[in-house]
């Protein structure tokens, strides 16, 4: 098990090293990068939208359920919702979902290219396949996942406000008042630091498992599942590590 870990870790580092070479044609690499930005960013927006809204709504209702003391003002609910969403739910929960959506897509796309010899065809043409196929995916994920996390944060807070109003837990005015109480900009920095890290983990781990598929269609499915599981575990591990270091 230990040797397997070091084997994968070593190969993973070699894969990252292999990405750094002079691009054969910068225009084609740029085109590939933009395509990945669209796939990862726009392609995942729908699921992020739905999850964030409900995540905010549920957080508001559960916080209200737990804050029963009459001496605590209702606006505190909004404050708790804001910090919970910014610190944890927007970066971590969104990244866990994206590990499933984006990670499986990257792993299965590269796995299919490997099995159908498309990667070999690129190699034969003299193209650095790690640079051309993997690097744009990692860069696009590192750029787009923080954007999605930021959007998830806004949508989550908005969802929390709407849920509060709809259920009659607190008014919109109380919610807005609570949002502004003791706001720390550092929390946003912390959320962004996490989302950059998670973006890198999701894309690179999934690309590693997809790129190294051997066998047939069954192995593509297995690689996809492994990529998602390993990405999720690493996201949770790094979530803890970054929280311990940065907070």
């Amino acid at each position, binding site marked *: 098990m230990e040797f397997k870990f070091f084997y994968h870790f070593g190969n993973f580092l070699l894969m990252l090293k292999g990405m750094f070479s002079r691009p*054969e*044609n910068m*225009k084609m690499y740029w085109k590939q990068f933009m395509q990945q930005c669209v796939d990862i960013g726009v392609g995942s927006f729908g699921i992020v939208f739905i999850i964030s809204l409900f995540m905010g709504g549920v957080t508001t209702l559960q916080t209200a359920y737990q804050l029963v003391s009459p001496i605590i003002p209702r606006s505190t609910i909004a404050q708790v919702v804001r910090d919970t969403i910014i610190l944890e739910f927007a970066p971590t929960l969104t990244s866990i979902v994206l590990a499933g959506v984006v990670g499986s897509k990257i792993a299965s796309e590269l796995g299919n290219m490997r099995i*159908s010899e498309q990667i*070999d065809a690129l*190699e034969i*043409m003299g*193209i650095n396949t790690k640079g051309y196929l993997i690097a744009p995916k990692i860069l696009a994920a590192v750029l787009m996942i923080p954007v999605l996390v930021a959007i998830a944060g806004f949508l989550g807070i908005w969802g929390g406000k709407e849920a509060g109003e709809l259920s009659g837990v607190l008014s919109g005015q109380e919610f807005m008042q609570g949002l502004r109480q003791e706001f720390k900009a550092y929390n946003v920095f912390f959320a962004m630091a996490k989302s950059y890290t998670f973006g890198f983990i999701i894309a690179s781990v999934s690309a590693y498992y997809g790129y190294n598929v051997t066998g047939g269609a069954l192995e593509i499915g297995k690689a996809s599942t492994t990529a998602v599981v390993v990405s999720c575990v690493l996201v949770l591990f790094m979530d803890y590590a970054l929280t311990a270091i940065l907070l």
Partner: protein
Amino acid sequence: MIELKDIRKSFGDKEILKGVSTTMEPGKVNLIIGTSGSGKTVMMKCIVGLMGVDSGKVLYDNQDFTSMDDKEKKGIRQEIGMLFQGSALFDSMTVEQNVMFPLEMFGTGTLKEKKTRVAECLERVQLKEAAKKYPAEISGGMKKRVGIARAIVLNPKYLFCDEPNSGLDPQTSLLIDKLITELTKEYNITTVINTHDMNTVMESGDHIVYMYQGQKQWEGSNKDIVFSKDQKLNDFIFASEFLREAKEMRQLEMFKDGKWRDQLKKEQGGK
């Protein structure tokens, strides 16, 4: 010209290539034939550099490919075109975009010039009408032809084809063979084909290497093969009654033409 000098390749304890040497000349269709597991696919992958060799040399026009660094290999690879067994077309691109891809990546010239070159290549493989279709929308034979068009778009010096006839009907197979042979002669390409197809062997094989259990068992042309006394080769090539009869007819034809003396002399002298 491609030269193999005593190449060896093992996977674990199993030796797949046991010191193979041969020379593949330009303007000729060079075939690697053999039963499944005889090492022909590994041999082709070693030649194009998709797998490294354990020992021995692969020389492209006297340049040692096996000892080159990645940058130098890139230079050689840009002179290689390859047709894969499954065609290996990019699913997300149309036929035209697939053929355009190597030109966009490495080609010089204006977009108009590139489009003209793509149109020429598609015309050459008779697929101009399928230019806007996706690989999923065309037949297996058409995919192979797109693969050929993509392989020749940069005017390669070396063309590799991995089982170009697999999964194709006999008529389409003949069309593909004819196309590859014509292109080889027309552009003086060093073509290397890995095949099981007996039609290809008999119709296109200017130079044939028969692999048996990782070793070169026999080497010659499609004319030599008819008179070969090598039992393993005969068992492989003329496996059915029909093929044995075809062999006898071919011998008879050559006998009538008077070519048999030269071939027989060559075969006896060569072995």
